[in-house]
């Protein structure tokens, strides 16, 4: 243990910018970014599954409102959505008296809500595409077995749709990681926020931003390899057979 800290001090010796203190800011930023991205992705996924099923419904009055929602959230910049929720939440009548107020007053939750609604919209469309691509034969086979609509959805359509959606969903996760950088705009100290702070403190843009860019690059690669691994496992049946 002592060795490592000595090595660490050696590494930082003479470096005015990357001191243990500033590295601490970057670490806190990493925790914040991971929390924001992870929580919004999980919540977005939970929202997107029923929305995608509704979006693929044959009834216009079910699918159209969902289309309207995804169209608006995919057609406008996330920054605007964040501003609307961040600045707008104060003006909901009576919100300041409810028990939500202490939560919503901080920047974290408006940002989380904006990110969740945004990623849910994109994920809904990804899943809808995957559901639509289910082969007719599988559906007919399920019907021939006398499966009900919901059983067919649960046992036949969703499992294969999830797998088909995997590559596109991996892109969405990376997109979300990159989009989360705008959390720093509403005063959150995420990775980009930490970089901005270090830049402002030392007036060293190259050090501050190149370092954070390298961290983002590593995170992106980690996500990329994780999804490649998942695809290898879950889409094994689609790979060309080795003879």
């Amino acid at each position, binding site marked *: 243990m002592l060795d490592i800290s000595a090595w660490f001090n050696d590494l930082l010796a003479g470096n005015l910018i990357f001191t243990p203190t500033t590295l601490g800011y970057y670490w806190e930023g990493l925790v914040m970014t991971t929390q924001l991205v992870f929580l919004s992705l999980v919540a977005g996924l939970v929202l997107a599954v029923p929305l995608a099923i509704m979006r693929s419904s044959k009834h216009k009055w079910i699918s159209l409102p969902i289309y309207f929602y995804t*169209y*608006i959230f995919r*057609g*406008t*910049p*996330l*920054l*605007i*959505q964040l*501003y*609307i929720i961040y*600045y*707008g939440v104060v*003006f909901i009548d009576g919100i300041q008296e409810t028990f939500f107020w202490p939560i919503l007053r901080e920047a974290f939750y408006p940002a989380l809500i904006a990110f969740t609604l945004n990623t849910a919209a994109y994920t809904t469309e990804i899943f809808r595409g995957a559901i639509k691509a289910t082969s007719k034969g599988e559906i007919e086979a399920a019907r021939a077995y006398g499966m009900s609509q919901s059983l067919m959805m649960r046992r036949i359509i969703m499992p294969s749709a999830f797998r088909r959606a995997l590559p596109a969903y991996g892109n969405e996760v990376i997109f979300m*990681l*990159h*989009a*989360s*950088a*705008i959390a*720093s*705009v509403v005063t959150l100290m995420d990775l*980009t926020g930490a*970089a*901005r702070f270090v*830049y402002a403190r030392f007036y060293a*843009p*190259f050090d501050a*931003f*190149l370092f*954070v*860019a390298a961290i*983002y*690059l590593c995170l*992106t*690669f980690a996500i990329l390899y994780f999804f490649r691994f998942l695809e290898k496992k879950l889409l094994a049946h689609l790979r060309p057979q080795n003879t």
Partner: protein
Amino acid sequence: MLDLQGYGPRLIEGAGVTIQLAVLSLILAIILGLLTATAKMSRNWFLRRTATVYTTVIRGVPDLVLMMLLFFGGQIGVNAISDMLYYNYEIDIYINFNAFAAGVITIGFIFGAYMGETFRGAFMAVDNGQIEAGKAYGMSNALVFRRIRFPQMMRHALPGLSNNWMVLLKTTALVSVIGLTDMVRVAAEASRATHEPFAFLLPVAAVYLLIASVSEWIFVRLQKRYDIGFGGQ
């Protein structure tokens, strides 16, 4: 006209900035994308490697971080170069690194990487026999590119191009963070000043939707144009 508590004219000006920024960076991105795609398909090892590093790094880092790097670092970099020129060669130039140029360059660079991938796939989809036929007619490489490869490549590239454009359009909103007065910045300032966020942010969101819808219509027409000769699928 639209007054919006006196912010109307500034919002319209901001919309102009957004559109100019988007169109100029699209042009830069297309040029860079074509160069990248060419480099990626070239026989030269070094060119291929450089293009791969460019597309990988750019697509792995958030746009906002790249934008800040170029915007905050750009002036320092430019000053260092002009200082060096002055001390070594007594060339006295002063280059002002403005936010608009930084925005166009960064967005162009970012989407050049995405366009490169789109164009590469599209170029590879063009039938090799067509290129050989062009050469057999005695066309020069440039002529083959202009008359055969480019028009057919565009047919395959348009869906990806339209996708990239939609993302690019939304990315322009980020320049408001680095101090450019586009419509998002005006709207954010106005909402803070008047405490009426919906009155300004919702119209701006609507303008984005409008631009997206208009460009979708244009892309559908372009696709029809480039699909001529393929039964207009």
